[in-house]
């Protein structure tokens, strides 16, 4: 399959037109009856004022996934030996290191920044351009960061839930994050400065296939077992993001059912729920 840049631009423009149309046609979620405080609280907690438009884009993404990404990812997962899949995953992870490093610094996490830098040096050299994650073998485990998380650490609220065409679940804060991470990524800078745009497409494409293959099982079973796949992914996205923002430290504080008496019986979660869960987010890594 050959890729014509002009053709690509055409596809993007028509996608955009379609999306704008869907947004206009879908409009906004119906406001709850202002006289019902519980319904209003629920509406605010769901925090998805553009739900009909988001659902339309979600279905569009699902259609594109079923038609293109999922078949390729299934083939990749079933045909390519696990060993090579792991090497590709390691190499793609390693390419992200500079962006992770930058975000570690911006979040004031100097220890984590040092770990990221050390990993990048070890893996890019001994690990043969990142193909083998030697650093993890040496006990230097990796982590992920992105500018959306940095903005959260800086105190920016997530804003309403948004489903982006192609990129999927997001919010205004994480959308800014995606754009900033893309712009500061040295690999992308190198590619655009040396007229190697194809390298960016190749990297993005292989990352999409890599992540889709890794999450195939989890997504398939979610799709099968959930009543409302859209609402389930919305909840999971928020919870996962909150967990990532707190670097895995916050997840134990979620409100949960109690044994026996009280707060759960009236269906109203403890007061901390609003803050904790509104931060909560399935981020595909």
């Amino acid at each position, binding site marked *: 399959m050959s890729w014509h840049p002009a053709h690509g631009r055409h596809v993007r423009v028509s996608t955009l037109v379609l999306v704008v149309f869907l947004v206009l046609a879908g409009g906004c979620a119906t406001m709850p009856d202002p006289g019902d405080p519980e319904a209003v609280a629920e509406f605010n907690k769901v925090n998805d004022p553009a739900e009909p438009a988001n659902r339309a884009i979600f279905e569009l993404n699902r259609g594109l996934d079923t038609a293109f990404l999922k078949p390729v990812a299934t083939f990749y997962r079933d045909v390519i030996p696990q060993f090579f899949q792991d090497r590709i995953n390691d190499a793609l992870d390693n390419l992200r290191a500079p962006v992770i490093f930058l975000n570690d610094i911006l979040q004031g996490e100097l220890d984590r920044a040092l770990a990221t830098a050390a990993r990048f040096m070890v893996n890019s050299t001994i690990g043969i351009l990142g193909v083998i994650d030697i650093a993890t073998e040496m006990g230097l485990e990796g982590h992920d960061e992105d500018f959306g998380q940095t903005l959260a650490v800086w105190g920016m609220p997530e804003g309403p839930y948004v489903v982006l065409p192609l990129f999927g679940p997001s919010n205004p804060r994480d959308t800014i994050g995606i754009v900033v991470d893309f712009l500061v990524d040295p690999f992308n800078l190198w590619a655009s400065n040396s007229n190697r745009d194809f390298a960016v497409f190749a990297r993005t494409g292989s990352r999409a296939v890599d992540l889709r293959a890794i999450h195939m099982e989890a997504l398939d079973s979610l799709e099968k077992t959930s009543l409302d796949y859209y609402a389930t992914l919305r909840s999971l996205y928020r919870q996962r993001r909150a967990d990532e923002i707190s670097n895995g430290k916050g997840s134990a504080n979620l409100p*949960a059912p109690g044994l026996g008496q009280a707060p759960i*019986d009236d269906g109203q979660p403890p007061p901390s729920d609003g803050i904790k869960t509104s931060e909560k987010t399935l981020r595909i890594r």
Partner: protein
Amino acid sequence: MLNRRRFLAVLLGPAFILVLALPLPPGGAFAAGLEVRAEAFIQSMAQEALESLTQQGTSREERIKRFRKMFNAHFAVRSIGKFVLGRYWRKASKDEQAEYLSLFEDLMVTSYVDRFQRYAGKNLNILKTRAEKGSAVTVFTEIARPDGARPVQVLWRVGARGEIIKILDVVVEGASMSQTLRSDFGSIIRQKGGRVSGLLEELRVKTASLKADAGN
């Protein structure tokens, strides 16, 4: 009258204080005891899952039966079900509540039996425990993945009442089972105009299709 009331108060007062004082061992020791019990509880459940779900040649129907037994024995099904339904629990009639709880159990059993089985043979490492508000403990574990990738972080929220100890929530990589289900069910009910009966219709269809599923 007044005398009799005073007499009763004098008689019952000390008895009441006695009753209050008796079942209260020192706080610290009690909490630590629960943490140890919760760890042992999670460990033995993992062992039980390994023994009852991973045998070769067990039919899916049989595995569902065994998993249902485990689920009812170790999970606070009613509490979780009520939490998941949230404010709509009160709006449901008694009959709806009963049918909901039975369908909720069906959904949990049929959707987790395959996932549970996939992980049942894998190592479960207990990392630490932490006491929570009320008689609850969070047990932090990591479970090896079938494909050998980085282990999954799984937190078990465990509650105790007397001798009874049950799981209240499972949090996988930061995503809580009960929170996620609550969003899922809540969204369906809103689409059905706030009617719990609308959720029940969807649950009947879903559980029927999951039961018929050959598993994967």
